[in-house]
């Protein structure tokens, strides 16, 4: 029996791997997710067959409660709130690793096991509170700005020292539970401290990193309870989180340490040193221009998510196409508040994924575009990233909407985006500002068309 359970874990690991492989292309991704879920099912069933289990009561209660909460949350969440949801789930995973590490503690544990226990508690704890803070910032339950205070680094260093010391003491005197509690408390605190100085729009990087940590915590728990499947699955997740983090940092041309420690986007808007004047446009005039355009590029950003404008965008896109206009979407890798955020929203509104062009595909075509419609995007279309060496986002690859013949920018005010900097795009000769909530502005355009 026991050996069968073990081989079931091999099968389950193979399913996770195959599932992730299938996640690599939009056509097979859904199947891939199902395969991965089957892998999880196999692992859970195998775990339940373990002969050491004599009492299923608490397991079942745990399942039912957790499963119901998870299912309800998954069903109810709005697509625009996906980033928060992932952060929250991730935090629960971290807490689970913390509890498993703690529960695996027993009087006979050797030092190697103690170290893995401490690791799973530590990483799990940081993941838990860190994810909660990320959740708070993204959902704006707490302020989304970067919280910086004098002496922050000293405090953090003290916490790290405390954790190291308490962990060492714990390994030497595992019987004395005060060290254990100290480690737990400090790692929970540390999770909070590392995330508060990071601005809201950088949360995706944080979540992705914490996601990687929750994988590593599962890995450590796997070493602690001697379970292969935890190690394999945990390291797959660990690797995936790290790669996503790298991809995002690269897309912003910022280093990971800049993201984590610089308090970027903490709100100090740079002096406006931009020349040119702002030319607003009315919905009606915008309609006439669009009506005559033969090639339109739509570039969405975080504002589209805020306005929940994805459905009206799709409607506008259809009207334009009926009018004989070619419409493409240009998706910046870090538009919105999560990598691929715009893709998910537009997919929700039934925009086919082959109409969504990546930055590198849309930029060379921009010169042939009659009208580029920027919907609630700001930093990801900021030409300062290309032109002004003194800009904090200098070097970040952006979508060059300013090469299009005309640019419409849909936003509510002249407020800056997440990076907190001026956008010279708004002052360019070929730019027209269509002020107002994106959903309402587009609704207006749609009414003009029909």
């Amino acid at each position, binding site marked *: 029996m026991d050996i069968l359970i073990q081989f079931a874990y091999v099968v389950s690991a193979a399913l996770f791997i195959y599932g992730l492989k299938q996640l690599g292309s939009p056509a097979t991704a859904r199947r891939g997710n199902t395969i991965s879920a089957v892998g999880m099912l196999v692992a859970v069933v195998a775990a339940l067959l373990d002969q050491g289990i004599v009492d299923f009561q608490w397991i079942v209660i745990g399942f039912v409660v957790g499963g119901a909460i998870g299912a309800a949350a998954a069903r109810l969440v709005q697509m625009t709130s996906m980033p928060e949801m992932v952060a929250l*789930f991730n935090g629960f995973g971290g807490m689970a690793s913390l509890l498993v590490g703690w529960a695996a503690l027993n009087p006979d544990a050797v030092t190697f096991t103690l170290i893995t226990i401490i690791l799973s508690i530590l990483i799990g704890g940081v993941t838990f509170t860190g994810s909660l803070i990320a959740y708070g910032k993204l959902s704006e339950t707490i302020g989304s700005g970067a919280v910086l205070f004098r002496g922050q680094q000293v405090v953090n260093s003290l916490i790290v020292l405390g954790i190291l010391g308490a962990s060492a003491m714990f390994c030497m005197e595992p019987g004395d539970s005060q060290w254990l509690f100290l480690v737990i408390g400090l790692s929970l605190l540390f999770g909070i401290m590392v995330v508060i100085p990071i601005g809201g729009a950088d949360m995706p990087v944080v979540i992705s990193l914490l996601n990687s940590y929750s994988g590593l915590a599962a890995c450590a728990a796997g070493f602690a309870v001697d379970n*292969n499947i935890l190690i394999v699955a945990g390291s797959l997740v660990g690797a995936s989180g790290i790669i996503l983090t790298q991809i995002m940092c690269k897309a912003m041309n910022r280093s990971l340490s800049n993201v984590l420690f610089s308090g970027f986007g903490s709100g100090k808007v740079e002096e406006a040193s931009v020349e040119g004047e702002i030319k607003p446009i009315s919905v009606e005039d915008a309609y006439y221009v669009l009506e005559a355009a033969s090639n339109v590029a739509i570039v969405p950003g975080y504002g589209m998510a805020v306005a929940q404008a994805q459905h009206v965008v799709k409607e506008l896109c259809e009207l334009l196409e009926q009018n004989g206009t070619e419409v493409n979407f240009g998706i910046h890798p870090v538009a919105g508040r999560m990598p691929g955020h715009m893709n998910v929203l537009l997919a929700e509104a039934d925009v086919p994924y082959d109409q969504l062009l990546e930055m590198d595909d849309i930029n060379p075509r921009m010169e042939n575009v009659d009208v580029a419609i920027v919907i609630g995007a700001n930093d990801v279309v900021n030409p300062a990233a290309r032109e002004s060496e003194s800009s904090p986002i200098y070097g970040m690859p952006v979508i060059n909407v300013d090469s299009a013949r005309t640019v419409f920018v849909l936003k509510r005010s002249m407020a800056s985006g997440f990076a907190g900097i001026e956008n010279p795009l708004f002052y360019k000769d070929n730019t027209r500002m269509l002020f107002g909530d994106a959903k309402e502005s587009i609704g207006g355009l749609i009414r003009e068309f029909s």
Partner: protein
Amino acid sequence: MIPAEVFLTFILMLSIFLGFELINKVPATLHTPLMSGANAISGITVVGAISLAGTGEQDLANWLGAGAVALASINVVGGYLVTDRMLAMFKKKEG
């Protein structure tokens, strides 16, 4: 006899390399579902939690295990469902 740690390290090394190869191939379009799908997999801790929650002894480890089962189940069930919901929306242009 080769000790278990050696095997575990081997497995760790191989899985990390494999994870990198697999994830590097996922296109930007799918990064959000990938993130939530990977997140669901990290709920694998539930497997470790199950054996701790079912010992039948009414001690601390048992309670901790039960709590871990509940939390990890939120992660697993919620994670897979939400990923599926997202992926179900991705459609190719109909010819």
